[in-house]
């Protein structure tokens, strides 16, 4: 006997530990008889939650809003695909290289912007323009990249090459990735690194006066966020086995990541994921159910929701929930790092 019944009950009712139970359950979902389409939506939602959480590290915590994060997504996806396509290099290694490229690109971009003390909007613009330029670049180099039509990943179905015949395997991988980035984000939020990022977001000059090397930390956050996003791109290419410039570098994708994260609440570790799980399935469902012209009406409403949240709910949906919980419990909780 590992624990007596009484101990088990006690263990579970302490809220921190209760948290781990649903996580364990998540791992067993593939054992249930769920339709392939649902599994697909689950995988996409998890991937999206992963991307949004990664984005929030630099844009939510540090306040350096990147609207071109798909740069790194695309670099990761294309590097893996191209290396496998032309050199037969296994995506396990190709993926690591893709992540490295993403990190390097982020470093160059971040260094250029932050070193010269260019203000927030400039950085945002630089990231925007980067993803657009990359899209153009990959479209134009069509002999190598397949241009607009994209490039296919040779199908092997072999785990050696990061390909699986059973969707469940993809599910497990993205689940682990998502949980990983979630815990990382939470860890950061409660660490010196996180505190410094929040300080930078709030008031850069005051942060400098507190001994914070703002340039260093901004670059660090950006590179970390980029590397994580890059790996998301690697997963994407291995899952879809087909990469096009529009899909990975498109502005729509970039705006989607940013807006979903902000709707959920980009200043807290679980906010972006919340946004992703709330929004994505709904969007997918309306698209499947309505089709035609009408599926865009929910998007109009979604747009209005964004405007409403931006204006009145800075913490996003997660902020609303936290505030609700606090008023319910009646205690003055410490909303670490929240935007109000």
């Amino acid at each position, binding site marked *: 006997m590992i624990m007596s019944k009484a101990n088990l009950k006690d263990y579970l009712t302490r809220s921190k530990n209760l948290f781990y139970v649903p996580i364990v359950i998540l791992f067993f979902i593939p054992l249930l008889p769920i339709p392939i389409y649902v599994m697909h939506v689950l995988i996409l939602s998890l991937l999206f939650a992963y991307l949004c959480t990664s984005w929030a590290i630099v844009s939510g915590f540090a306040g350096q809003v990147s609207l071109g994060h798909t740069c790194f997504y695309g670099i990761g996806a294309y590097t893996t695909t191209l290396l496998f396509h032309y050199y037969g290099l296994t995506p396990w290694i190709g993926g690591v290289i893709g992540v490295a490229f993403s990190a390097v690109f982020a470093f160059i971009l971040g260094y250029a912007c932050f070193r010269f003390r260019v203000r927030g909007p400039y950085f945002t613009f*630089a990231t925007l323009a980067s993803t657009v330029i990359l899209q153009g670049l990959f479209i134009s180099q069509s002999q190598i990249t397949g241009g607009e039509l994209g490039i296919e990943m040779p199908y092997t179905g072999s785990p050696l090459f990061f390909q699986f015949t059973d969707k469940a395997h993809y599910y497990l991988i993205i689940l682990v990735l998502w949980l990983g980035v979630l815990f990382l984000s939470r860890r950061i939020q409660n660490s010196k690194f996180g505190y410094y990022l929040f300080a930078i977001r709030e008031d850069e000059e005051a942060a400098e006066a507190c001994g914070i090397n703002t340039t260093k930390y901004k670059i660090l956050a950006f590179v970390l966020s980029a590397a994580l996003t890059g790996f998301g791109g690697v997963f994407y290419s291995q899952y879809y086995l087909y990469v096009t410039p529009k899909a990975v570098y498109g502005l729509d994708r970039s705006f989607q990541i940013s807006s979903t994260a902000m709707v959920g609440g980009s200043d807290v570790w679980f906010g972006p994921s919340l946004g992703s799980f709330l929004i994505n399935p709904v969007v997918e469902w309306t698209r499947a159910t309505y089709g035609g012209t009408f599926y865009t009406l929910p998007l109009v409403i979604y*747009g209005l929701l964004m405007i409403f949240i931006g204006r009145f709910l800075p913490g996003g949906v997660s902020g609303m929930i936290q505030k609700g919980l606090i008023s319910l419990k009646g205690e003055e909780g410490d909303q670490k790092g929240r935007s109000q």
Partner: protein
Amino acid sequence: MNVNLIQGLVNGVLAGGVYMTIAVGINLIYGVMHIVNYAHGEVLMIGMYIAYWLFTLAGVNPYLAIPIVAAILFVFGVLLHKSVIEPVLDLPLQRQILIFIGLIHVFQNSAMVLWSADYRSIGVPITTESITISFIYIPIGKLLVLIIALASALALYYFLKKTKLGKFIVATSQDPDAASALGIDIRRIRTLTFALSLALTGIAACTLSPIYFIFPYTGTDFNIFAFIIITLGGLGSYTGAIIGSIIVGMIESLVSLLSDASIATAVAFLVFILILLFRPSGIMGKRE
């Protein structure tokens, strides 16, 4: 080869005219309010639809519709500013961006719902013709775009430098506190600037409507170029916007000119990265 090159240059300048007005519009708003209107391309899209419906339902020539569309968008600008933009000017960047993404969604998808995804076009005979100066072939439609874009930029310049109201706008953009202390009503100036920027876009929309297909997502394409132009030319700089537009236009035409388009884009990419590295605030931009 020489002939083609010159034609390419001409095409480039003409292409630049297409994006110029949006870039100038975004910079105008940024200069006064330090906020980037990411939805500016969508404003252009709305303007194009207005021109389309005026033409289709009332037979109004898009060029003649310019004052009408400009007026409509001016009013629209005032309403939009008062309801959405003004309340968020002091909010952190993140929240502003979310709001603009929301606006993009609302505009694009409202257009979809109202007018469907069908590509529409206005047929105005003169625009498909062209002037030929010796060996150079200049489509009239695009020429008109450029001429009117330059004319509006010039008119704007004159307005800002010579008129009282214009000087107030410049003062507000340079130092809002000082301007306010001098008795300038900053709120009205901001509303005016925003509405003016949209009206300018309306003018451009009319000139573009006979040339481009009109559909709900056309704004994105224009946005993309505007963003690149502003990155290159510098945020907040009108001259930068004009120069940047020409440069981007050149690159675009050279790409289609050279048989090996991939090299041109790669070079453009390189230039872009270099500018980012050494002048991230853009060629004419201000460093803080």
